[in-house]
């Protein structure tokens, strides 16, 4: 019996029990939809994070006291013991790195900013060298000017501010030339950085840049400096990192076998860390949702077993008319595969809707442009898996049907 005949038999018996077919398919639909949606959302998250992290720029890297991602409390305590990176370290690196086109430094502290009676809490205050905005992804200004070497050389009390402060303080007024208080220190606004939006719900526009020299004068010199570096080209990217590493290790008299007591990080390396960190979470989430697919498979198997029991007489008749074992087996297998394959197809449609809704909700929560794209490979995988689930759940019931003795089956009431 050709396969399309089996498909027609299967469709006929599925049509005959519409409610049962619907409920069985629903089980698979939910399983497939949640698997695809979970994949879509984790993919979306990954893409979102990498887009954000890679803003760091492809040939730039940072040297800091502590790495960007710390995975345990113990690690954090270990990192705390490290020496701060000093202005002298910055100078040493700047002088040693021939393959670097820009070497800048920054220190950071959170302060309250004030303009007249208006307060803006938790403003990230960065003390930066004048080249800071040119390293990595270039931060454009929407008004005024950037910091210039003179600002740094003379430790001028000037500031480039983020758009959150403009919104909070000035509204429609021109912020340029106004003097704001940051941590109680008066600073004159010379520039406004272009708005960037938020990352994981944290605003990236709630900041003030001041010259690093001014920062140290106003807020103290005890803070560690983080060094931002741009390599001359992609070709010397590794070499530039190596030059910096050697220079810093030499200055710190680190023994041959001692590990670095500072972190050199690229966008890539942070992304790698993120990936290893989230990888296991993704796997667990995937497995948990995949269980719903297994449950769907059990439902299919159960229904097929019921169906075989109900149709023993029919199987007997078919055998009397000349159906071989494989004809019966095929008919029931095809039925199971159609049940779950149909569930797979509808599940894909459900997943598209589901991940769009979840993507929108997540996007709103993080106030960011976030999308959870349904991937073709996830669709193909889900369809293959659901058809496979049908096949696996159909094998035993189909084998039972095929093995029925025609005499016994015909006698069945």
């Amino acid at each position, binding site marked *: *019996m*050709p396969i399309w*005949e089996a498909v027609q038999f299967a469709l*006929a*018996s599925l049509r*005959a029990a519409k409610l049962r077919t619907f409920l069985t398919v629903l089980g698979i639909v939910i399983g497939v939809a949640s698997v695809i949606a979970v994949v879509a959302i984790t993919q979306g998250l990954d893409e979102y994070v990498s887009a954000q992290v890679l803003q760091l720029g492809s040939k730039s890297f940072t040297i800091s006291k502590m790495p960007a991602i710390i995975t345990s409390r113990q690690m954090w305590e270990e990192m705390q013991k490290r020496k701060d990176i000093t202005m002298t370290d910055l100078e040493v690196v700047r002088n040693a790195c021939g393959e670097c086109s820009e070497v800048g430094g920054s220190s950071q502290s959170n302060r309250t900013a004030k303009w007249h009676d208006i307060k803006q809490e938790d403003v990230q205050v960065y003390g930066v060298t004048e080249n800071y905005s040119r390293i990595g992804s270039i931060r454009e200004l929407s008004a005024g000017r950037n910091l210039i070497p003179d600002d740094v050389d003379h430790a001028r009390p000037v500031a480039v501010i983020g758009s959150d402060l403009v919104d909070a303080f000035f509204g429609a007024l021109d912020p340029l030339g106004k003097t704001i208080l940051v941590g109680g220190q008066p600073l004159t606004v010379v520039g406004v950085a272009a708005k960037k939006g938020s990352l994981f719900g944290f605003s990236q526009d709630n900041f003030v840049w001041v010259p690093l020299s001014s920062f140290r004068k106003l807020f103290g010199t005890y803070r560690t400096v983080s060094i931002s570096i741009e390599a001359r080209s992609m070709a010397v990217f590794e070499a530039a990192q190596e030059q910096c590493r050697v220079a810093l290790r030499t200055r710190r008299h680190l023994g041959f076998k001692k590990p670095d007591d500072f972190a050199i990080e690229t966008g890539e390396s942070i992304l790698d860390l993120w990936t290893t960190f989230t990888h296991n979470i993704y796997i667990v989430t995937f497995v948990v949702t995949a269980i719903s697919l297994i449950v769907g498979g059990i439902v299919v198997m159960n229904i097929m077993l019921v169906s075989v029991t109900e149709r023993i*007489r*029919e199987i*007997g*008749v*078919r*055998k*009397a*008319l*000349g*159906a*071989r*074992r*494989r*004809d019966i087996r095929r008919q029931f297998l095809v039925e199971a595969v159609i049940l779950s394959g149909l569930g797979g197809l509808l599940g894909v449609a459900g997943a598209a809707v589901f991940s769009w809704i979840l993507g929108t909700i997540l996007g709103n929560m993080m106030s960011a442009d976030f999308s959870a794209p349904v991937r073709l490979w996830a669709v193909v995988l889900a369809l293959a898996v659901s058809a496979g689930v049908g096949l696996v759940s159909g094998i035993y019931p189909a084998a039972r049907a095929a093995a029925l*003795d*025609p*005499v016994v089956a*015909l006698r069945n009431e």
Partner: protein
Amino acid sequence: MSATTVVPAVHDDSAHIRAIDLWRTYQMGTEEIHALRGVSFTINANEYVAVMGPSGSGKSTLMNLIGCLDSPTGGTYVLRGKTVSEMNDDELAVIRNREIGFVFQTFNLLPRATALHNVELPMVYAGIPKIERLERARHALEMVDLADRANHKPNELSGGQRQRVAVARALVMGPSILLADEPTGNLDSATGEDIMRLFGKLHDSGNTIILVTHEHDIAEHALRTIRLRDGHIESDERRH
């Protein structure tokens, strides 16, 4: 059909069915039950045979063996030169498909399929293409005067009509034997007579018919009666 062997010793052109010392033993726990205890007979082409006997006589068992639904535990069964008793399940399925046309007491039509599709079914298992199937199924329904009921489902047909659909289904593959098991058992006597007239016509047109029944009125339509008792043939009479 590699396992199909022609046994020269029992080969006989006129012998349609040759049963030699057929035994069928069932195992019930530790006890052996002999439903058939060495049954031998020959049925020629275009014979019209009634198999009779009280319940427990072994007539259902014999019908299952003749219909290739079951295999004997002893003896040899040769159907048109093929030693059926040595065949496996799937080979028996092919024999049932090509050589046997079943008519059951309870009709055994697929309830959700139309009359046409029910008649088509054996040809699906024979691998006959759709167009030819439909043509032959329509023709078979015409032969039983049901051409106008082709698209009715069994529950839209009367008992007699259902049984005629079953006869059309049994004949559509052009089988060697039409094997009817109490074909009138679920019909009123007038309708039963209709069906028996149809059988008579089919016999006249050259079919070999084996009728299993316990009703004398029905058996009288046949030209030969084999009576079973306790697994043996009690009598085998021909009427002329």
